[in-house]
């Protein structure tokens, strides 16, 4: 087993900070590289590493391609990062891959977008300062201290995005979220073998599920204090900037709670036009793959057992091969098909799906609401600040978003995108967007599903190790 150097990892990659209920994500622009490096040097001893479990506050920092450049990394070294990271989330090709069209188009994003607008454009997002607190007051007190240091250190605050873990960890549609996470082999308590993944799927500098090292940014042109970095395992003549780091995906997803529940109610209304509350919840649960409590449909196909569930001990291969419990097209099943990926055997499926896992770190924003058929009018905009960690943006995040979520031909389906995150606002000409509920004797087709989630901003970040952060201060 590979030994993971927890002390060198920024803790957010390996822990979700469940006790830190509030977070503020500050998007910063580096206007003066030298000042910013000095600021970063002063920040280092506050960064939370993997061995620390603070009671009140956590602090982490991520950086974009443009941020590394602004901090002084030379082109030859920037060139060693993955193409996806260098190009960013907002390119025309990536827009097609990720399905960000119409209102969700990067041209309309509030940050990180493909636009000339100085406030909104990708090039002006450099750093992501992540301040966590056990409650709002603690978080804000900590944040305010940081904010007062920005301007004098050559940093411009572009935007603040707040993230909160809602009551019972439910997201705004009303479903308990963030239950299933892959375990990193060698980190923390051992988990179920089916869910324990080689560290190289999430952390650079370790072997992945293919048994090879993921692409990692090495320093090919000496600059800064090279002694701060470890040698690359594959090419010991080079320093590995990426070791113990990860790629961080950040997408701001607005959730249209009203549209979501109105749709469910309309599609399930009784013959006399009255609302069938129970049926509307069931349809929503079929789309999600879990009940509002978090209980998986694969285990509880008929009704929500109630209470709160973190049940992650289930598969589909033996329990639900025909999808009668949890539909093939449900958000849960297609974003992690577990032991029933296409028509592969259970063990083979697990081997395949382990190559496409992500560690999710979503937090909600906006006035909290626990959506339901009777409560779906939030005050103002609400949504999810979706984040995930992975070692290979192409093979993991982009693959999951494209091939498992957006691709309407997933499994044996015809016209079924992921009903939660894969539908388009305006379907392509001649296209339909359906959701199929496998059932006996006939399947049920929910026709013309709508877009309930709109992308409002996003960017790819690098989440450096502690050593790499330290190295950046020496550029």
């Amino acid at each position: 087993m590979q030994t993971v150097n927890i002390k060198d990892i920024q803790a957010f990659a390996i822990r979700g900070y469940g006790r830190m209920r509030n977070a503020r994500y500050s998007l910063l622009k580096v206007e003066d590289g030298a000042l910013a490096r000095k600021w970063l040097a002063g920040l280092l001893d506050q960064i939370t590493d993997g061995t620390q479990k603070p009671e009140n506050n956590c602090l982490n920092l991520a950086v974009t391609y443009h941020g590394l450049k602004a901090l002084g990394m030379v082109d030859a070294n920037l060139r060693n990062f993955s193409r996806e990271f260098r190009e960013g989330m907002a390119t025309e090709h990536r827009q097609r891959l990720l399905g960000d069209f119409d209102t969700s188009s990067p041209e309309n994003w509030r940050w990180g977008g493909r636009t000339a607008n100085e406030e909104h454009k990708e090039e002006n997002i450099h750093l992501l300062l992540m301040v966590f607190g056990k409650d709002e007051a603690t978080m804000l007190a900590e944040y305010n201290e940081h904010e007062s240091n920005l301007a004098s250190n050559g940093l411009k605050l572009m935007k603040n995005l707040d993230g909160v873990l809602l009551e019972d960890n439910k997201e705004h549609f009303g479903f308990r979220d963030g239950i299933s996470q892959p375990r990193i082999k060698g980190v923390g308590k051992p988990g179920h073998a089916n869910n324990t993944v080689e560290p190289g799927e999430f952390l650079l500098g370790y072997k992945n599920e293919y048994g090879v090292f993921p692409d990692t940014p090495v320093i090919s042109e000496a600059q800064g204090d090279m002694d701060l970095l470890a040698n690359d395992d594959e090419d010991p003549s080079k320093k590995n900037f990426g070791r113990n780091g990860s790629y961080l995906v950040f997408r701001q997803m607005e959730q249209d709670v009203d549209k979501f529940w109105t749709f469910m109610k309309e599609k399930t209304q009784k013959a006399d036009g009255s609302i069938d509350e129970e049926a509307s919840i069931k349809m929503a649960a079929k789309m999600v793959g879990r009940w509002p409590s978090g209980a998986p449909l694969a285990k509880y196909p008929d009704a929500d057992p109630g209470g709160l569930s973190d049940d992650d001990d289930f598969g589909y291969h033996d329990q639900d091969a025909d999808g009668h419990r949890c539909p093939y097209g449900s958000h849960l099943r297609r974003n992690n098909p577990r032991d029933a990926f296409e028509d592969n055997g259970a063990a083979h499926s697990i081997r395949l799906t382990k190559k496409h896992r992500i560690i999710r770190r979503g937090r909600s924003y906006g006035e909290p609401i626990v959506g339901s058929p009777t409560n779906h009018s939030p005050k103002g905009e609400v949504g999810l600040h979706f984040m995930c960690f992975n070692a290979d943006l192409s093979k993991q995040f982009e693959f999951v978003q494209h091939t498992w979520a957006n691709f309407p031909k997933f499994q044996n389906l015809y016209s079924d995108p992921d009903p939660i995150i894969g539908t388009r606002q305006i379907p392509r000409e001649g296209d339909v967007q359906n959701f199929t509920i496998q059932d006996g004797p006939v399947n049920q087709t929910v026709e013309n599903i709508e877009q309930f989630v709109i992308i409002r901003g996003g960017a790819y970040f690098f989440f450096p190790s502690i050593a790499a952060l330290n190295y950046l201060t020496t550029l």
Partner: protein
Amino acid sequence: MKQYALTLNAQIIDQNIDQLKRILKEQNQVLKTALESLGTIHYARWVIIDKYTLDGEDLPAQLVFSSNFDGSVDQHFQDLDSHLGDLLNTIYENCEGYTPNDRVAFLKKTRIKEAAFYQGSPGRTVGQVKQERALRDKVLAEINGNNWSGKSAKEIHRSLQDKVLNDPQFEWAKTPAKVPGVNYLGLLLIGILLLILAPFLILWAVFIHFFYERRAETMTDSPNQLNDAHMAKMVKDEDFFDQNQFSQIMDMQKGLPRLITVNFFYLQTRLLVKVLFVKGKLMGIPTIHFARWIQVNDKRRMLFFSNFDGSWTQYLGDFIDKSGWGLNAIFGNTIMFPKTYFLFFGGAYDERHFLAWSRKFQISTQLWYTVHQDLSQSIKNINNNTIIRNELSKNLSEKQAEAFLARI
């Protein structure tokens, strides 16, 4: 009716290369519409292979046309001539030896044979694919438009039969379509042949390993290191809808033993696509509609074309996960392939270098036509639609009827 592959390879007049590229770009839509009008083409492409120096020899630029079509080759030549007409002149005037007065004769002269050819839904014509999609849509609409509560699967199936097959529009669906099955006898014979050859094959693999694989120059670049401009050119044409195409050209490794090896595995592929890979999966990969391998420049280079469902990452990932050994056997004989061991091992399983290799040797497809831009059927959909058609007209047991309904 059978599907065939046509490959044409014409030499481009040196000073006309840029002009030809421009024409294929400007006339893209017009050409696609003309190809569509044949009504028999599943996929087609024009690919320009740029000028190239191989072993000190300057190779001229080549224009390769490929199509996957229904019916006879002769008819296909006639159809291309009559439906593309002057468009053919516009293109092939830029090629050496073009005879505008006898276009068909010229096209026939440029024809080259595929080394191997795979199809995901053998026997399905464009017309049939369209009909069977309409049939599936009709059955789905009937299912959704009726209340089936209290009915058994068998009753529902019978009722669908009445509703759909009595519609004159679907008269044709009363006759089941022929679909090839696995030819177990053929498979057995291939197996016996391989068993007999096994000792030689093992010796051969050892020989290749020590005298060729160990000395081969292999891919050491990772995907990060690929040329940015090249990658930008590749991805700008990708992921507009649910299918993509792939064109790739590689130099063969030097030496007769390499040529013998690749030809042996082409032969195996030709046999296996006839007897085993007839149900929509090529070595376990369930997303390929058509693929072909072509030997060009006196068998010194290999050309590979495929048409597939989903994204490039998905497709190449499937290749590694499901048939890495098969890839190694064929592509391992080309230069810069990630290091293989005893023909089947290593190679594609070195995920990072294999992906980088695939992209490095990918070339632009100047024009790509697919009937599925509008028809939008995955290879799984196409094969499922045929089964739906064939099961609809049958008398099914309750259990069979349940399985039938689960397909829709």
